[in-house]
């Protein structure tokens, strides 16, 4: 595959790994006293393990897995609210495949489907809108999930629905933004991070400047990175070089895709449809101010929470559901605990019997450790 293979070239990787080792040695990084770099995005976590980068880099570089998996950060309360909407008579509930297996306190969407709810996997919110056109007697709800990467697509879908005045389509909006949780992590006195690798496709939409505060206010480097192994290695090297030369800047490794100021069309569509919520609940991080998006009043007809009186629009208010006993997803997701340190990993929690979302989301850190072997291969 052109434009993919080039970024998986083992010989180029060896040159980068050697440069990383030189930089790490120059800083004095060691296994006992490592440079801790958080890869924010779950897609990066998976690439790291798929290619075994954690084993290949200098022992003084430690990857801390961040909260950038939209399904993982969804609190159980929101999964329960999704299941509740899906179970309503006359509803077709549509979702990306990722969210289907995520457990709520009353089961997952897949289990709701087996119990008779009409739950369908779609590949795009526009597919859900097409279902609404073809089923005028049904209420079609799309599970709007994701960071700035997916938000423009649901914004555009709502704009189309409004233009066509489609009355039976809503979005259950769980869109969130990347910068607020990073600020929350940086404000946490227990988190010791030396730098960040930032999610490339989020910056494809928002550009690189929303991260300026990380360098300016916290003195930490961040490099926006692509998703192939060479992208990641080069980004790690760029972070280390900043540390070695005493700089803290926001740099763009993924310039072949990410424009400095993002994508103005996407930004305009998001601004037209969504506004900040006062706060939004995150798994493991709790309520974070201004970290979630909601549908603006002028598009409220397309807001599932309003239409069904659920979630933040419930007249009775929300009662957060506690995470299951023994589930450490919150700690793992915020980089406080490695997946394999969780007492449930591989015992009470496996992909077949997940306790938390991190084991079943395609971007979950526990799923990466499980799928690509981390702990289990080490036992060889």
């Amino acid at each position, binding site marked *: 595959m052109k434009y993919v293979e080039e970024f998986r070239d*083992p010989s180029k990787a060896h040159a980068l790994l050697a440069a990383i080792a030189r930089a790490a040695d120059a800083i004095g990084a060691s296994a006992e006293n490592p440079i801790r770099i958080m890869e924010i995005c779950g897609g990066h976590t998976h690439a790291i393990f798929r*290619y*075994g980068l954690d084993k290949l880099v200098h022992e003084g570089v430690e990857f801390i897995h961040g909260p950038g998996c939209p399904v993982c950060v969804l609190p159980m309360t929101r999964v329960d609210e999704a299941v509740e909407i899906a179970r309503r008579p006359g509803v077709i509930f549509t979702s990306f495949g990722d*969210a289907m297996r995520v457990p709520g306190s009353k089961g997952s969407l897949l289990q709701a489907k087996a119990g008779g709810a009409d739950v369908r996997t779609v*590949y795009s919110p526009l597919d859900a809108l097409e279902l609404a056109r073809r089923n005028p007697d049904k209420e079609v709800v799309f599970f709007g999930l994701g960071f700035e990467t997916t938000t423009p697509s649901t914004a555009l879908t709502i704009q189309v629905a409004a233009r066509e005045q489609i009355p039976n389509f809503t979005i259950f909006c769980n869109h969130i933004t990347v910068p607020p949780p990073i600020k929350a992590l940086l404000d946490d006195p227990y988190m010791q991070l030396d730098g960040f690798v930032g999610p490339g496709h989020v910056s494809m939409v928002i550009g690189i400047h929303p991260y300026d505060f990380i360098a300016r206010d916290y003195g930490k480097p961040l490099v926006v990175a692509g998703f192939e192994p060479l992208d990641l290695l080069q980004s790690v090297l760029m972070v280390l070089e900043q540390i070695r030369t005493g700089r803290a800047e926001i740099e763009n490794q993924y310039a072949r895709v990410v424009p400095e100021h993002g994508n103005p069309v996407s930004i305009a569509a998001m601004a037209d449809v969504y506004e900040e919520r006062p706060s939004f609940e995150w798994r493991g991080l709790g309520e974070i101010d201004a970290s979630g998006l909601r549908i603006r009043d002028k598009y409220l007809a397309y807001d599932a929470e309003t239409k069904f009186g659920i979630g933040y629009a419930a007249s009775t208010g929300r009662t957060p559901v506690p995470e299951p006993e023994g589930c450490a997803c919150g700690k793992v997701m915020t980089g406080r605990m490695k997946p394999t340190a969780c007492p449930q990993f591989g015992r009470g929690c496996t992909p077949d019997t997940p306790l938390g979302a991190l084991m079943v989301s395609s*971007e979950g850190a526990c799923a990466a450790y499980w799928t690509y*072997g981390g702990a289990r291969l080490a036992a*060889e």
Partner: protein
Amino acid sequence: MNAETKPSRLRDTRITMAHGGGGRAMRDLIEEVFTDVFRPDSDEDQARLSAEALREPGARLAFTTDSFVVTPLEFPGGDIGKLAVCGTVNDLAVGGAQPLWLSAAFIIEEGTEIAQLKRIVASMAREAAIAGVRIVTGDTKVVGRGSGDGVFITTSGVGVIPPGRDMAARHIRPGDVALVNGVLGDHGATILAARGDLALSSPLQSDCQSLNGLIEAVLAAAPGTRAARDATRGGLASCLNEMAMSAGVTVALDEAALPLRPEVRGMCEILGLDPLYLANEGTLVLFVPEDQAGAALAAMHATEAGRDACLIGRAVEKGTIPVTLRTAFGGTRIVDMLVGEQLPRIC
């Protein structure tokens, strides 16, 4: 006179409940759509089979059954009928059996187009002729609209294992090599694309094909062949896990050696799927002693179904992980059984 030129006795263009009711409509359907094409020897409700093939001392009967459900019913490279023949032929052949007879039972949903049903049946007859098997008995049932998905087919197959043959996963030994007859994932990727909801267009075709000829060729060239399995549902990954666990070995794969079409790799890349878990319908994995690998590969290369045959890995002493993969990048990862079904990702 063959079925195509005879004037049709069927007045409907679609299946109705009457076609399952036991009366004249049902008889007309069975005769015109099924028995005129399959031409069983007897009008009785059973097939009467010669035991001639079993006369050789040590020969064994092999018997297998499989049900087929697929959406869409017709797809590039095949249809549910071809699948129902290939699937059961291959289930017999991978055990070393020479397939002889099949039964075919149809559950047909009210509203199914009779013309489509005829195409499916014609496709079964064609594939049966290619594989050298006969469809000797069958059944039809009609279910109400909404109770089925067009057509479901169950085929059972009987074959004969010649004396002295004993292919089984438990015979695999450390040092044996793993071979495949062709590229991986074409069927799964074709079905995904054919469902249409991905808006992907691709030149892919299902690999759906009967493999009994190929297996006979391999066994003639490499009689020490230990075991074969067709890598259908769950893909190569699930099939190898089952074989490794039965054999008590670990299978070590080499990522760079896995034969994949660029279209399949591209589709998997976009959707976040792993081609090792995509279904195949004409791809098998064989374990042979290393000194017979060359002969087995040469025998496969001489057949249409084995043109792209290659070595993908080997059995090694049993470790804690049944199947591992040496990545092209130089790392090693686990290749686990498929969990649930593969679901496309968000971003």
